[in-house]
């Protein structure tokens, strides 16, 4: 890719992305192509980061562990649903990831948690996401009982219209009351520590990239 093209790409992306300045966009693009380079070496020519590569990044860089959530995060990044993340999806995604406002984050998180994409987080979806959240107690008659109970507790807390499922407005209201509930069903945003590390690592004055 030549310098002119890169310059143009940087400009467009900077224009469309409100949370990053030009320098930061440039850093991210560089990072993307660096990562792409690794991937390409292994898999031949691809247009973007595929699911596995992206999950690897999530895991290594942002410390995420839950497979299901990571899949959902990938879908959140992959706007055009083509199974890979291209450079603009990468920059947009990270802009939300790192700098998103509460509104943006809520929207994103809700999409992550709404597993079937029907606009609601149903009891079943909650159960699915929470099923590993309690330590199994051997004495417990029904190991799922605790989870079910937890789902009920969550609904009681968040389901304001009492329809047995969470709409976006339910979710939004609950999160505005208590920000801790933003990632209620699993960590789908980078935790503050790894975020800081990532930013410090990527946005430093990169001498080696100056000449690209």
């Amino acid at each position, binding site marked *: 890719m030549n310098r002119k093209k890169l310059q143009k790409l940087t400009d467009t992306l900077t224009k469309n992305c409100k949370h990053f300045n030009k320098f930061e966009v440039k850093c991210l693009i560089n990072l993307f192509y660096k990562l792409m380079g690794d991937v390409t070496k292994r898999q031949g020519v691809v247009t973007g980061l595929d699911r596995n590569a992206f999950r690897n990044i999530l895991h290594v860089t942002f410390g995420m562990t839950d497979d299901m959530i990571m899949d959902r995060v990938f879908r959140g990044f992959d706007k055009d649903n083509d199974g890979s993340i291209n450079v603009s999806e990468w920059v947009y995604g990270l802009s939300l990831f790192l700098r998103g406002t509460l509104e943006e984050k809520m929207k994103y998180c809700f999409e992550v948690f709404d597993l079937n994409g029907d606009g609601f987080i149903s009891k079943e979806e909650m159960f699915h996401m929470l099923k590993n959240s309690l330590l199994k107690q051997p004495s417990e008659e029904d190991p799922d009982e605790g989870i079910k109970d937890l789902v009920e507790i969550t609904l009681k807390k968040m389901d304001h219209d009492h329809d047995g499922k969470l709409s976006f407005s339910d979710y939004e209201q609950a999160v505005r009351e208590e920000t*801790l509930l933003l990632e209620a069903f699993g960590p789908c945003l980078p935790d503050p520590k790894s975020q800081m590390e990532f930013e410090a690592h990527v946005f430093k004055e990169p001498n080696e990239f100056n000449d690209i």
Partner: protein
Amino acid sequence: MGVALTRSAQWTAAGYGTRTLETTPLNEAILQEIIIFIESFIYKHPQEAKYVFVEPLEWKTDLDPSAFELGYVVSETTVESEEADKNGQPLLFFSVPQIQVRSFGQLSRLLFIAKDRKLKEAQACIEANRNPVRKILGFDYNAVIEDSSVLNILDKITEDNDPESQVKMKIAMLLKELDLHLLNHSLKHISLEVSLNPEAVKNDVELLKRFSGKGEETVLESITYTSDYEFSNGCRAPPWRQILGEMCYVLVKPHDVETLCITCSAEGVFLNGGKIDEGEINYERKGAIYKDLITFLKNTSAKFSEVMSKEQIRFNELQNGKDQPNETSDKKESDAIPKAVDGSDKGMLEKKQINFGKRQMAKRLEPSLNWKTTVDYKGRRSSLRDTHKEKRGGKLEKSAPSVSPGKTQLACKNVSKTEEIVSESSSESEEDEEPPDHRQEANADLPSEYWQIQKLVKYLKGGNQIATVIALCSLKDFNLAQETCQLAIRDAGGLEVLINLLDTDEVKCKIGSLKILKEISHNPQIRRNIVDLGGLPLMVNILDSPHKSLKCLAAETIANVAKFRRARWAVRHHGGITKLVVLLDCAQNSTEPVQSSLYDARDEEVARCGALALWSCSKSYANKEAIRKAGGIPLLARLLKTSHGNMLIPVVGTLQECASEENYRDAIKAERIIENLVKNLNSENEQLQEHCAMAIYQCAEDEETRDLVRLHGGLKPLASLLNNTDNKERLAAVTGAIWKCSISKENVTKFREYKAIETLVGLLTDQPEEVLVNVVGALGECCQEHENRVIVRKCGGIQPLVNLLVGINQALLVNVTKAIAACAVEPESMIIIARLDGVRLLWSLLKNPHPDVKASAAWALCPCIQNAKDAGEMVRSFVGGLELVVNLLKSDSKEVLASVCAAITNIAKDQENLAIITDHGVVPLLSKLANTNNDKLRRHLAEAISCCCMWGRNRVAFGENKAVAPLVRYLKSNDINVHRATAQALYQLSEDVDNCITIHENGAVKMLLHMVGSADEDLQEAAAGCISNIRRLALATEKARYT
């Protein structure tokens, strides 16, 4: 006897030598039995009664030698029995207070002589002779008795045939019999305390069954045994569990809790691990032990206890009905029962139930009693060295084939003992203002929140980060200001989890945990628990966190927790003060990049929380110092310049707390804080106004500060705040500030301008004491000026002031007397005071125990006496008043002495009164005070002496009491007032020739000559007068010599 004494008798745990028998019913019973045995010995076994002990039993007795009569040789302090042994030694030898007895016959007689003090003597004897058997029979027999069966003893008898050893053997047997008897007897006693046995449990279950079933009115949904088979002993537990004292297992389904599997054992009732498979039960204990089934259920199921309380009456009736046959058949036992239950303050129902259980127990006990003692006897052989402690619960288990009632109660006792210990340690006394910890009433009706919270805490404990956050958020929705919820969290073990979460890396969990801790730490008990669990160091660490909202929450929680001394110490000890001071600095770094993190609060918020925490911490002296050293004052001063109301309150609060320290006041002046305090007096916020006024009150001790308040225009807002009297705290602070400010004259003038004095007079009635103290203090300062005194009088302020003289608050009394003293300077005011009998009230305050009040009252009397009409007559009218004043000269307080001297000066101006106080011995008392270095006392003492010289031969008397020489030394003082008073006194004293010589000898002339040149006319005159007296004497002597 030996075994019973070592094992059954309850010794106090004071170690050997000084151990005594506790006065318990059991011990008393044992002693009674021993007494009966000894008393009847002489009749039953006349032969053995003559046997001479190997060693005498020796103890300290309370008996009097005179009590011994026939058969004894009695002298004043010794008694010897006529009965003697082969060697002619008396069998009883008594030398006050030690007594030695060497035969049963003598013991019997002694008890007879002791009459109603038998018990005491027996106790003293047994306490002094811990092993009586050994002393009676000698060492070898003691061993025989201890470790042999009857067979061995018989062997011994056949071995040696001489009559003496036969007697010895007989006695050994008798003692052994007594021993067994005592053990039996003590067992009967202990057995009255039994609480559970198979039959009692069976009855409980049957009874509950009848009240169980579906529907709202029943106590339980169902109650069944796990096993249908009942053993012949009434137990249903399998035999290998019976060995452990377990009797049966019951499945109970209350209305509000899931099915409980309960073990009923001899030790009590508890929750077990539950049913695993068909017929298999997890026997492990899962919960606390309760004394019976009903108590257990009451504590476990709220619904049950609720219904039970309704059903109580019916239930009781039923139980009584059931008891009827028992009562008739077992009269004897039931007689003993009320005695055992007496004094226990348990609820009626419980009482009934104890009775219920006990009656049945007692009935069942009869047959098993013998069995128990045999076991005991055998057991003793097998394990000789068992301490009596072990025996309490342990030993019988090995041999007991089925549930032993005897063991039941012993174990029960142990359980209740340990429970007592546990509850004691939980209520350790706190050094501070905190109330003692009390656990929630065990069987109080618990609301449903309690159980919900308990469940949430369970998820907190056993959940991953996601579940934890959900549980925390959900927990936060409860009304955490309510004590039930606070204690529910604690009782469920939630505090430990919440505090542990603070130690993790999970920011969200920490935030959630702190949000809850912040709320529940309003509860004093929870605060202490948090400190005990080591929560404070963790919170202090969080203050370093990069997330501002975390810092805020931690600081706010610290602010709540650090309300008592130990907590404040912990904050300081872990470096919290420095970190909190750093938080104050946040507000300045506004250049920081705006972070988009979710966990960031505003900088002002961080500073506010920091100030809040410092406010709490600043109640300790050492913390104030630490805040200052950490550079907190300039930061506080800077924050004070901001205009956020929320921020200002904790900042001013901290300053106000700290202003009690001298170096803070200097720093406050230096940092120009007063200006801002004054500014904030005009704020809208009442609390802020209050703290500002309070801070001014603290700082205005300093003159410069008082001027600063005036220069910054603080007096006007203070005066206007006086008009709002609804908020008493603020009023107290404002009046306090006015009081201290009015120490400066310029300020008083301003206050008069603002009509504050009139308002203050209006506040003399219907105000709380804190306000009154300050109002009166302020008036006292204002009344130093004539104009203000007139205002006070015209506004009718004298009457309420005099009324306040009957109070008991010391601070108030001191201020009131000062204010009255100030008013009394005005003759017109004095008339009013006299009319209101104020002088008498002042006079009676001389009897107040507090020296400050005494002194202040005595000072106030001076202007009163000066300005009252017919003052002499008035003073004399107080019966015993003059004597009282004179006797106050014996006080230890210099201030009281000075004030009383001043009062005496005024009293002595009336000749008649002077005569009276002279009669009361004022001269020697004053003379005794003469050796002092206190200038204030010196001055008033000298004045008093000069006034007292005016009567009779008082001048001479002062000389005789050696008051003159010390007075001369007063002239070396630096205080001109002392000089004047002393010169006047010396002038009076020099009228007497001997005094003249003493004055001269002590080198007064040179100093007096110097003082003649003083600018003070009175001093000039007195000094000159004194010199002229001395000179005249010298001339007279010269004249006499030459003629």
